């Protein structure tokens, strides 16, 4: 048995993030195993996006530790963490607006792929995200849903070991949402994913284990069925939606 089998892919311990008097993340302990697919849910302001930001170096946690395959990452810079193998699709699409779709994907591909392999790799990602027909368009001319795809495409193209998706289905049609769910299941065959989402139907399609955030803390962590049946979760978040 090697070390990698003993150490979880991601481990956050007693993670706290304060903004002045506001505690966005309060003593969060969170573990993700290799190849796991985890859904993060919780009402607005529960601290999900803040948690993602501390995982990717966009924020330095006030206290606590984060380890990626046993390597500490809290306090490291975003590009250092990205190079270690964590990729993120942020809540508000973060894309290169003035560049073409192809160039956006290429910028993600070229960090790992050899020059010869870059072209085919870009084409494969364009195909997977259904952007082939829009490859030469400037990203700013695309719809919100398509820009979501460009960003998802960039994350996939960089081939990270851990993929963080912050509301990947926001602004997508039902059909696009189904396609997103299919892609997530597909990439989960080879890498670990954490998904933040509000859409319960979407969660049901992909989820195995769900973690519920509430007021900066972990409220429940269990299988999707048990979480949806949990009275506390219904009270704070799902409310009438599930009861009805």
């Amino acid at each position, binding site marked *: 048995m090697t070390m990698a089998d003993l150490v979880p892919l991601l481990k956050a311990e007693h993670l706290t993030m304060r903004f002045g008097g506001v505690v966005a993340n309060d003593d969060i302990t969170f573990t993700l195993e290799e190849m796991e697919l985890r859904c993060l849910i919780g009402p607005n302001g529960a601290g999900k996006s803040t948690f993602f930001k501390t995982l990717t170096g966009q924020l330095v946690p006030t206290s606590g530790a984060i380890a990626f395959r046993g390597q500490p990452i809290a306090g490291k*810079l975003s590009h250092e963490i990205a*190079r270690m193998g964590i990729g993120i699709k942020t809540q508000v699409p*973060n894309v*290169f607006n*003035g*560049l073409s779709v192809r*160039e956006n994907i*290429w910028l993600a591909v070229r960090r790992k792929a050899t020059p010869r392999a870059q072209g085919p790799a870009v084409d494969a990602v364009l195909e997977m995200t259904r952007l082939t027909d829009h490859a030469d368009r400037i990203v700013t*001319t695309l719809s919100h849903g398509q820009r979501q795809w460009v960003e998802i495409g960039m994350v996939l193209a960089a081939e990270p070991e851990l993929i963080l998706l912050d509301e990947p289905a926001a602004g997508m049609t039902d059909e696009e949402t189904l396609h997103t769910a299919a892609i997530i299941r597909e990439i989960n065959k080879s890498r670990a994913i954490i998904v933040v989402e509000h859409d319960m139907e979407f969660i049901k399609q992909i989820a195995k284990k769900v973690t519920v955030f509430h007021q900066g803390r972990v409220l429940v962590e269990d299988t999707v069925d048990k979480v949806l049946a949990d009275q506390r979760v219904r009270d704070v978040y799902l409310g009438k939606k599930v009861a009805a």
Partner: protein
Amino acid sequence: MAVRFSLVAQAVVVVLAIVAIAVIPSVLELFAMMQLTLFAAMAVLALSLAFIWGFGGILSFGQTAFFGLGGYAYAISAVNFQDSTPSILLAIIIPALFAAILGYFIFFGRISDVYLGVITLTVTLILFNCVNSTSGDEYRIGKALLGGFNGMPAVPTFNVPFYPDQALSPEQSWWVTGGVLLGVFLLLRLLLSLPAGRIVVAVRENEVRASLLGYDPRKVKLLAFILSGAIAGLAGALYVNWGAFVGPTIFSLSLSAEIIIWITVGGLGTLLGPIVGCVLIEYIVAYIGSQQALNSNLVLGAVLIVFVLLLPKGLVPTARDLVMRLVHAPKAKKQLVDEQVPSSAAASHMAGAE
């Protein structure tokens, strides 16, 4: 097909530019050629800001700091060595080193864009005041007397490399200056088509995304800043070669502002635009200077306001959009395809990016 056509077209334009540079001395009078030499030196300075501002997204108000450092580095070493060969190199290296140190603190200190403007502006003022207060015999570097406000007269001009006694004629100086302008232009064009240049543009577009993909924006911006400083320094050497003189007004704020006007008029985000803007504005300023009816600063201000209000994209992008529309309009009518509009917009943008 389209790519091959544009490559051929670009090659033709480059050959035409080379021919134009070659024949200008036999076509123009000495005075006009000297004036063009000055404009070409200034256009190299314009390119240095066009790159860092238009493609790096960094508005440096103090480009004249590097320009002036290049000018003084050239002048001081030319007086000492009596040979322009190492002096031109120093005029590139010293401003580049200065840009490296300044840029390190700015970019690695995570100073915001607004303060970057303030800092570069202030550094220019500091250099002006330092050099301005160097009158007196005690302020000398080797054989070179700095001369304070009066500057350094009779600076040796360019000579044939490694032959200090063979000074260049005005014609040869023009060829060197025009050639450097073309060379820097092509170098930047090449760079912007290579992965390194695309990464500079990506960081301009979205720094957060670039770093989340594993690019270090601080490093990218620092390298772009150093290159820009080196080009501005080279422009300083060309400028001193033109006038055989350097004084502290080379660090002046009005020149810093003028570069920004050149680029605004010519077109931000292009390389050709700033050259066009620079030559046009400098020509107008020189013309106004030769007669007494109008104040040149007043005219410059008016030109800037007119452009910002009426042609905010600048001359070159506006002309390009016009050409694109003329070329694509008949096709779009025939085909009646909605895709035409975004793809032509994309094409014009790509042209701008490269």
